[in-house]
């Protein structure tokens, strides 16, 4: 049971998102903050661009030798007393995790933030089997209360306004006095903390994601801003890390290269508030820590991307900068994309993981403004990769017939310059007849344009015919 895909309905989703006043308010509030914080952090680091080149090259090296690094990582996890489980599909990953929970008689699991668990649909899988997942990241906690999925990689509740959160807390936390003051964001945070503290102490299993896996030590690394991940993994009997295979890096030093980039690009800080390295289970003499340490390594289509046209996408470190700078994301938010990963990175990754038949709308829904590529910390050429998907669709005749034929007719003229000049010359004169006022308020076949804007009417004659008149026949 993976996360259901709703991406083919992108246009309908977008329409709804544009009409959703709460969402539009939330998007307008968040837009500037991410951009300004990143900019300030990047300007303070003169070697930022060199660091990006370094990170890109390092990722390319890792992806070229992914099998070797994964095997080294596995050896070192086992050597430090942990267990590695390989999952080819989302279903397999869920089964493995459920198996561990069942063996430990877990009735509830504490969860740190994990997009991979969103990809596998882990929460609903566990719930259907009588195990309650408790999200401990504030944003994840909020959307869990609301029965929603994350709309952003690092700010899962980006689409919700503070007023909505207050209403959700009052609805869910009925044991608290109704007259309490929740005006300040800090009071919301304090209340969520208080509600969650007890739950940490009473779960058998803690599940976290991983930002990086370190091959030389067998460690997993997570970054959080609330410290919830630390509690999730240290207080439970078993710590399960769920991660996709491309998160592995060779050494601790390499992990630091990415951490320096990630925090600056994602949240505009030099480092995330908490950066936690976990290696193996509790050893003799350790004051605390889990008794069991498991890593579930998910492929779910990624190995098919290796060596192909979309391999560069596997460099992604999930900072969210591409969506933070995307005009389409700013307009419609993350849920419109219809699956786990929104924004430009989602527009490339979703068709890779769920197929272009299901994800094909997303790489089309881009103006190719290029801002995503400009800010990507590992220099993923996102517009180029989206264009690769459009080519795949075109080859397989998956685009709407209207667009295909429209373009085909245009191309047929454009390939014959003499015919093109005669035909366009006539067409512009014709169009000019209707645009005497300088603009057209409605235009057949272009209602998408004229529904929202006027169409400036053409001057009447084409440049090529006027130029010919100017310079005389040759």
């Amino acid at each position, binding site marked *: 049971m993976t996360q259901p895909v709703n991406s083919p309905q992108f246009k309908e989703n977008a329409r709804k998102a544009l009409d959703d006043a709460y969402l539009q308010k939330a998007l307008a509030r968040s837009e500037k903050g991410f951009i300004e914080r990143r900019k300030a952090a990047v300007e303070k680091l003169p070697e930022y661009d060199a660091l990006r080149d370094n990170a890109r090259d390092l990722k390319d090296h890792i992806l070229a030798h992914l099998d070797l690094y994964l095997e080294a990582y596995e050896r070192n996890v086992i050597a430090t007393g942990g267990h590695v489980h390989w999952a080819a599909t989302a279903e397999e990953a869920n089964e493995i995790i459920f198996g561990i929970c069942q063996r430990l008689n877990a009735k509830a699991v504490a969860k740190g933030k994990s997009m991979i668990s969103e990809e596998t649909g882990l929460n609903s899988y566990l719930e259907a089997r009588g195990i309650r997942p408790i999200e401990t990241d504030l944003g994840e906690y909020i959307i869990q209360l609301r029965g929603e999925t994350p709309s952003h990689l690092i700010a899962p509740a980006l689409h919700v306004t503070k007023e909505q959160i207050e209403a959700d807390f009052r609805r869910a936390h009925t044991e608290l006095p109704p007259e309490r003051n929740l005006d300040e964001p800090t009071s919301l945070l304090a209340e969520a903390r208080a509600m969650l503290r007890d739950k940490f102490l009473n779960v058998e299993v803690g599940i976290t994601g991983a930002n990086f896996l370190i091959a030389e030590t067998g460690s997993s690394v997570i970054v959080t801003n609330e410290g919830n991940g630390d509690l999730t993994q240290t207080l439970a009997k078993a710590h399960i890390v769920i991660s996709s295979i491309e998160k592995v890096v060779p050494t601790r030093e390499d992990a630091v290269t990415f951490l320096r980039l990630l925090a600056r690009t994602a949240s505009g800080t030099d480092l995330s508030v908490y950066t936690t390295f976990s290696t193996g289970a509790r050893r003799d003499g350790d004051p605390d820590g889990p008794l069991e340490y498991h890593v579930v390594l998910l492929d779910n289509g990624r190995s098919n991307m290796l060596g192909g046209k979309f391999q560069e996408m596997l460099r992604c470190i999930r900072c969210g900068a591409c969506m933070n700078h995307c005009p389409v994301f700013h307009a419609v938010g993350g849920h419109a994309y219809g699956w786990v990963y929104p924004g430009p990175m989602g527009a490339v990754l979703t068709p890779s993981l769920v197929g272009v038949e299901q994800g094909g709308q997303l790489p089309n829904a881009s103006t190719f403004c290029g801002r995503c590529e400009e800010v990507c910390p590992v220099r993923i050429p996102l517009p180029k990769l989206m264009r690769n998907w459009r080519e795949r669709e075109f080859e397989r005749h998956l685009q709407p017939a209207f667009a295909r034929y429209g373009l085909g007719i245009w191309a047929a003229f454009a390939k014959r310059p003499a015919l093109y000049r005669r035909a366009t010359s006539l067409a512009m004169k014709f169009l000019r007849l209707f645009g005497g006022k300088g*603009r057209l308020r409605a235009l057949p076949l272009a209602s998408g344009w004229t529904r929202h804007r006027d169409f400036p009417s053409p001057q009447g004659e084409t440049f090529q015919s006027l130029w010919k008149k100017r310079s005389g026949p040759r």
Partner: protein
Amino acid sequence: MPAAIKKPIRVGLFATCLVDLMRPRIGFATAKLLEDAGCAVEVPAQTCCGQPAFNSGDRKTARELAAQAIEAFEHYDYVVLPSGSCAGQVIVHYPELFAGDAMWEPRARALAAKTFELTAFLSDVLKAMPAARFEGSVTYHDSCSGLRELGIKAQPRKLLAKVEGLSLVEMKDPDVCCGFGGTFCVKYADVSNKIVEKKAANIAASGADTLLAGDLGCLMNMAGKLSREGKQVRVRHIAEVLAGMSDEPAIGEPER
């Protein structure tokens, strides 16, 4: 200075389809700017650079149109386009389209090396300073392809600074997409509308009485929105102002 070289520089003017079809005066403004700077301007038979096909995933058509353009323009000293996005297609994407093709890749690279967007050519190559007058305040939108594929940001502003009587007021987020995106604006009309709505608001809030940019697609999109919203901002291609043609009708105004 190149302009002083005895044999004039031969420039092939690639007008772009939108200018050819919709607004020839941008082509004439471009020609005037180049001629004033001492270039000999020619307009060979031309159609489309192939960008719509390329961005729609039709690589075969994109390659055919690129080959056609290479043949039409490769014998000039320089090729100039009054558009950052079409120039980007030639400069960045033609070599990409023919990568590994022994015959066409070198020709694509050679053409790319001598192709320029208009303001970059005037400012960086010719180091020309057109002498024009313009009474009023303008705000400048940085079109995405010119900005991010070709790094055009300073050049138009440098040229505008020399126009007598003109004051430049920067709008908020001049470098954020206007929502045009070629076929995007029709395929995803509602999303495009939301983006251009924000752009129109920023343009109006700048208080400038004229909006300028270097790409007609973006300009038509913004002009159409401003006009639909009843905002009194005139819209022109930067070439028109630099060439001193600002007394002619602006985009979306009736022809006289």
